[in-house]
């Protein structure tokens, strides 16, 4: 992943080289990378370009020691240009194990040789199932207390199980007593040496990507891999983190959105059949397709909160007087019934297609693989005409169980994209606005981008609404997230929003922007993005000693340079 400007430079440079010459350059470059012969990066950071390997460092902790240690190790790896996916075994997706290439475990032993409670799920999984992991390279660091008889038993168990599954142990099991720091660093040093020494053979050869010209929308058929309500019990909100997997490579970048066409609720469709008497299998020809009416009403046609124009057409067909309001089809039929099934067929033909809903992706191909995309969906509730209504798609997604099939397309956003790797980035994204920034951070982490990152996040309550809290904490601890400011609006008497935090940090914020940082705003349009923009202008005015007009010009210039982007809805 390199920025547009550099990519163009590279293309210009490589134009005209033959395939054999390109292969030679490829090998030459890998040599440079592995021997560290490049100059230091522009910012003077010590990080080298990352290897493209997927290295996972998982920890199983009871008291927090394993986690603290693993975080330190991940940060150390980062300094050596190796990017490590840091994850707690309690949050680890077990189905990923078969796809891992390098898997390192830091785990403590409890009581009578038991795993930590947080790692029990993982521990049971590798003991209760016959796995086959021939492609896995691993090592285990076991923490324990020699004053207990079953010293480091859990670490031993994990090491043994992986061996049984055919995985390759690249560094021997290391058992540590209560004084573990020195030994742990030694073990990890060995781990990093193994990874670095194996990187030369493993760099993939430059492959010719067949250029496919996009003709219309490409629909992907995916499966729901995970669906988690990120808000805790007691929250006023429900925000779903949905992970969708696909056999095909999904072509997208952080900053893009995906479009999902939700399905209508089965119980509602069933009610419509009962009320109208129409046969579910009856094939009806609409403007777009010809299909059984069950399929039409479930997957293709909008039956919720119909447009007034549709309601008018309904009134005309059924020859009834209906007030000029929007209504659900099922309620229309209930209150103003159709004559018979045949008349309902006519109704079907006037229905509009279900509009796709767009969701900013919250994943990065570099971090999460090319066969996966994540989204962050707020369950929508709104008051319309004195009635509590629900967002069709957010309900649909919120209820979608793991394993469900789901179709989506990628809507590319040319502008809401990360800048070059060494550029600084300011991200302002309260609520679900966090989505594209999770993608940005994951991307920058996976690719070893050296630019600094500053995130402003806001929600209602700290304890229940801090979306992706543990991931964000990890990014702070490993240094990916250089600065973070939080605003939980309802945790105190006065409402505090992201713009208040921006004002509190006005000096430094202005400094970053003046020194080349790109600013991104994501989330609700009104009032948030407007308030944020006004705050930006105020800060530019005050700290940049500009007039109101000049500040506006300044912001316009940023926009023109692609350094002020918005993804708001």
């Amino acid at each position, binding site marked *: 992943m390199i920025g547009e400007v550099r990519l163009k430079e590279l293309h210009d440079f490589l134009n005209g080289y033959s395939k054999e010459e390109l292969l030679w350059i490829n090998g030459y470059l890998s040599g440079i990378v592995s021997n560290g012969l490049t100059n230091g990066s522009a910012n003077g950071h010590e990080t080298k370009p990352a290897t493209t390997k997927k290295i996972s460092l998982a920890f199983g902790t009871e008291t927090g020691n394993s986690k603290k240690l693993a975080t330190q190790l991940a940060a150390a790896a980062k300094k050596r240009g190796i990017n490590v996916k840091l994850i707690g075994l309690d949050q680890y997706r077990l189905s990923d194990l078969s796809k891992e290439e390098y898997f390192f475990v830091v785990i403590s032993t409890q009581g009578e040789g038991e795993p930590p409670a947080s790692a029990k799920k993982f521990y049971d999984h590798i003991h209760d199932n016959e796995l086959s992991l021939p492609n896995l390279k691993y090592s285990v660091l076991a923490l324990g207390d020699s004053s207990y008889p079953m010293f480091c038993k859990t670490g031993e168990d994990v090491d043994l199980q992986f061996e049984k599954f055919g995985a390759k142990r690249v560094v021997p099991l290391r058992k540590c007593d209560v004084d573990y720091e020195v030994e742990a660093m030694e073990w990890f040093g060995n781990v990093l040496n193994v990874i670095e020494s194996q990187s030369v053979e493993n760099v993939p050869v430059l492959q010719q990507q067949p250029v496919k010209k996009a003709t219309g929308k490409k629909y992907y058929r995916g499966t729901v891999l995970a669906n988690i*309500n990120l*808000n805790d019990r007691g929250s006023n909100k429900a925000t779903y983190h949905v992970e969708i997997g696909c056999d095909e490579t999904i072509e997208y970048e952080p900053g893009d959105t995906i479009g999902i066409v939700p399905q209508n609720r089965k119980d509602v469709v069933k009610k419509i059949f009962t009320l109208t008497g129409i046969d579910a299998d009856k094939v009806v020809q609409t403007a777009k397709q010809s299909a059984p009416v069950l399929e039409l009403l479930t997957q293709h046609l909008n039956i919720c909160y119909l447009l007034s124009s549709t309601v008018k057409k309904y009134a005309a067909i059924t020859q009834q007087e209906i007030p000029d309001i929007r209504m659900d089809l099922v309620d229309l039929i209930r209150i103003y019934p159709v004559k018979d099934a045949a008349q309902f067929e006519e109704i079907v033909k006037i229905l509009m297609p279900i509009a796709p809903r767009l969701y900013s992706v919250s994943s990065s191909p570099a971090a999460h693989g090319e066969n996966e995309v994540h989204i962050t969906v707020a369950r929508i509730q709104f008051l319309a005409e004195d009635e509590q209504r629900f967002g069709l798609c957010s309900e649909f997604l919120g209820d979608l169980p793991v394993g469900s099939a789901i179709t989506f397309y990628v809507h590319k956003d040319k502008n809401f994209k990360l800048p070059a790797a060494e550029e600084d980035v300011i991200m302002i994204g309260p609520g679900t606005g966090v989505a594209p920034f999770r993608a940005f951070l994951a991307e920058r982490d996976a690719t070893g981008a050296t630019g600094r990152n500053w995130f402003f996040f806001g929600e209602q309550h700290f304890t229940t609404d801090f979306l992706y809290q543990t991931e964000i904490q990890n990014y702070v601890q490993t240094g990916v997230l250089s600065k973070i400011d939080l605003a939980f609006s309802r945790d105190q008497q006065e409402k505090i929003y992201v713009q208040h935090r921006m004002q509190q940090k006005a000096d430094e914020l202005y400094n970053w922007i003046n020194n080349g940082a790109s600013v991104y705003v994501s989330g609700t349009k009104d009032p948030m993005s407007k308030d944020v923009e006004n705050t930006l202008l105020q800060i530019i005015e005050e700290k940049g000693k500009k007039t109101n007009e000049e500040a506006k010009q300044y912001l316009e210039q940023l926009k023109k340079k692609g350094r002020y982007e918005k993804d708001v809805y």
Partner: protein
Amino acid sequence: MSKKNNLSAVEHIKTSSDGLRGTLKESLDEGLTGALYEDDQSLIKFHGLYQQDDRDRREERSAKKLEWLYSFMIRLRLPGGFLTPEQWIGLHHVAGEHSTGTIKITTRQTVQLHGILKSEIKPTIQSFNILNLDSIAACGDVNRNVTCSAHPKESAIHEEVFHYADKISTMALPKTRAYYEIWLDEEKIADKNEEDPLYQDRYLPRKFKVGIAIPPNNDIDVLTNDVGLIAIIDNGELKGFNIAAGGGLSSTHGNPNTYARLATVLGFVNTENVLKAVYEVMTIQRDHGNRSDRKLARLKYTIDKFGVDAFRTELEKRCGFQLEEAKPYIFTDRKDHYGWKQNHEGKWSYSVFIENGRVLDDEKIALKTALLEIAKTGKANFRFTGNQNLILADIVEADKSIVEELLVKFGVIAHTDQAGALRKNAMACVAFNTCPLALAEAQRYLPSLIDKIEPLLKKHSLQNEEIILRMTGCPNGCGRSPAAEIGFVGTAYGQYNLHIGGDRVGERLNTKYKDSLNEEQILSALDELFAVYKAERTEGETFGDFSYRKWVQTT
């Protein structure tokens, strides 16, 4: 953690904490997490708080990519466990505003609140301050809450003895102003001399507990303390105290170097010398206690390393006087005397049964509301017992009916009367969901276990036996399970070691009888034991003494 001079990590944290300040202020400002920075988690104990998390929620929170649900427990410093009714009303409101709402009476005569968010700690402490209450040294490597026999005095001596609790507490307070600066916004005075002759900059190697008993009632379990003072009263005069040292109940499963111990009576000191004696026991512990291995750091191990006689000699040397020979005394019970009692002045008290010390309103009884209403009358003081119960005390004759009316109205009297003997003499530590050390449930489980033991007792016609039964979720023994006639010590979730053979008055510890039993096994074991007890005991022999004679002594 590197061991400088072979000291444990906590030692380094203490000495580099600048008088227990650490980075607490920064920790409070850190908005990324509800937890404190690591070292501050040790330091905040000295301020009377523990960082905890809701263990029931861990898995779900992790799945939601949320950190553990951190909150704080605060424990008040209440020498002898005394609150005015105004203070109780204040406590009631602080609990409702900043914590889970439940007021927990501890096993050492104070109260604690759970579930306080990091951002709420300062307001909570400030609210307590307005009530003249603080939490200084309620936890940490210092002298903890000083306990004192709560029981309504048969003589005027009680008040005099009670004052020693306060004197000892004050004498052993840390000198640092950290608490006042951090929580009460006291200005830090540059160059102020904060020398602490007692604690220096390293405090004690471990917690230190002092208790005062007035025979014949040992409700505070005096011998379970590091220093136990037994009041010696002769001819209506307080002569002084027998001083016992080296009590401490915790042990670690699988570590034979750790063990529960009752304090050894060293001798007698008169009232003039008692404070000095207590002080010097602390200085010996400060200078000689194990600072490398916290599991071996309590005074009991220090004494056993010295040997009792050598310890006594060192104590006398530091005191500058000799201990006299211990004077005779006798303990007849440890229980709370429920119901109405009148003292020598004609004042009344009512001892309320509060299961596991938990004051809240639930579907069975609105205890918290009841106590608030009684406090509002201003007619009774609130005194906590060593058994986690409450005595509404110092009620003048004329006011008795007012208090009684409320006690009846809220069903408190019925609740106290109807509880069975076993339940009224039982105790459990907190364990889940807040204690990070718990291996098994305690206070959340014991009541329902007792529900199942009561029929067994009835079966053997033992339902009126005041057997002392205690449960702890781990071998640290905060619920004093090693000092019970029947003790349950958690080993894993749903499993307990069964201990028997402790005595009724608190002068003999129990012994492990069976390992890691589940509920079914517990009930069947007790059934057997009760049957044999009933059949073979001598007249008036307690279950504890019988078990000791029958099953412990013989092995």
